[in-house]
């Protein structure tokens, strides 16, 4: 379970462009549930995700992962946690150009030094599960938008994370691909993973697989359903 206590995030502190993205968020994310964060653009959804996913630190407030407080952990430990606990799916696939889909998928595991044969096998199987085995050796520039997004999903899962975080995952996907994505989310849930999604796509937050919707406005939580 992930808990946030009165988290604030301020950008460009002390400068004229100072801007407060999150103004005191207190939130509990329950295990093995699909939670969706909803809100207009600029309300701080992405910022909140990055803090939960250990990609950024809050300016104030505390974050707990299970029993462990992670707010002020040194960077090394934070990265360790991020690597092993979270799988991040961005709005844009954010794949590294100039290398193949397979290499992209294996990247998160490189620092762990897993035997290549093992890692490669795992990666190929995962790509296959999402119907991408033919594109494994293609350079990412040659993938379509949907394919790229799916490669990004496989990449996010390569270290078998307990929590999957997705930021506007269906923003660049058509209807059928969006449905496909929600199916995959269902699989995650079945595997015992926790899923956290931000979206303003009704297709997503009204889906049956979703357990909880949290509304965000101007860096503050609104009522829940």
């Amino acid at each position: 379970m992930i808990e946030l206590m009165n988290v604030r995030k301020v950008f460009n502190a002390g400068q004229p462009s100072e801007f407060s993205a999150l103004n005191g968020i207190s939130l509990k994310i329950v295990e093995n549930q699909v939670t969706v964060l909803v809100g207009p653009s600029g309300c701080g959804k992405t910022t909140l995700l990055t803090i939960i996913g250990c990609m950024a630190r809050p300016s104030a407030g505390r974050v707990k992962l299970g029993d462990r407080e992670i707010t002020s952990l040194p960077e090394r430990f934070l990265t360790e946690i991020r690597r092993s606990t979270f799988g991040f799916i961005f709005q844009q696939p954010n794949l590294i150009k100039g290398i193949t889909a397979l290499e992209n998928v294996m990247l998160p595991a490189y620092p762990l030094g897993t035997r290549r044969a093992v890692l490669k096998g795992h990666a190929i199987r995962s790509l296959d599960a999402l119907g991408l085995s033919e594109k494994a050796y293609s350079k990412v520039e040659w993938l379509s938008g949907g394919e790229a997004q799916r490669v990004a999903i496989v990449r996010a899962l390569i270290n078998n994370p307990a929590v999957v975080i997705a930021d506007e995952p269906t923003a660049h996907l058509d209807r059928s691909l969006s449905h496909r994505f929600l199916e995959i989310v269902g699989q995650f849930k079945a595997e015992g993973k926790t899923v956290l999604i931000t979206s303003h796509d009704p297709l997503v937050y009204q889906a049956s697989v979703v357990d909880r919707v949290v509304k965000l406005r101007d860096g503050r939580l609104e009522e829940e359903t």
Partner: protein
Amino acid sequence: MNAPRVRKSTLFLFLTMVEVVFLGLIFVHAVLTEEAQRANLQEKSQVVTTLKLTDLCLFPEARYARHPSQADWHAAFQDHPLSLEHFPAGSFTAPPMRPRWNEHENLD
């Protein structure tokens, strides 16, 4: 597009190994050739002793550069001290070094 190629890092490490081996071979070659050339060096040494030579024939283009050890300080400046070098050889050699025995000379 589907064929897996040789892993890049393996290729690189292999090439590096090859280069290291080559470098090793070069060292071996150097040592062996040095041994083999010893006779040749002896030959040249003997010519020097027999004919009382003082210099290697490295810069035969100019008289003053041909025997650098016999040339004096101003030999390079055949016209005057500010004249530019006439021959490329001058840019390779400097006037020979002198020992300090001059300083201990008695003037009386």
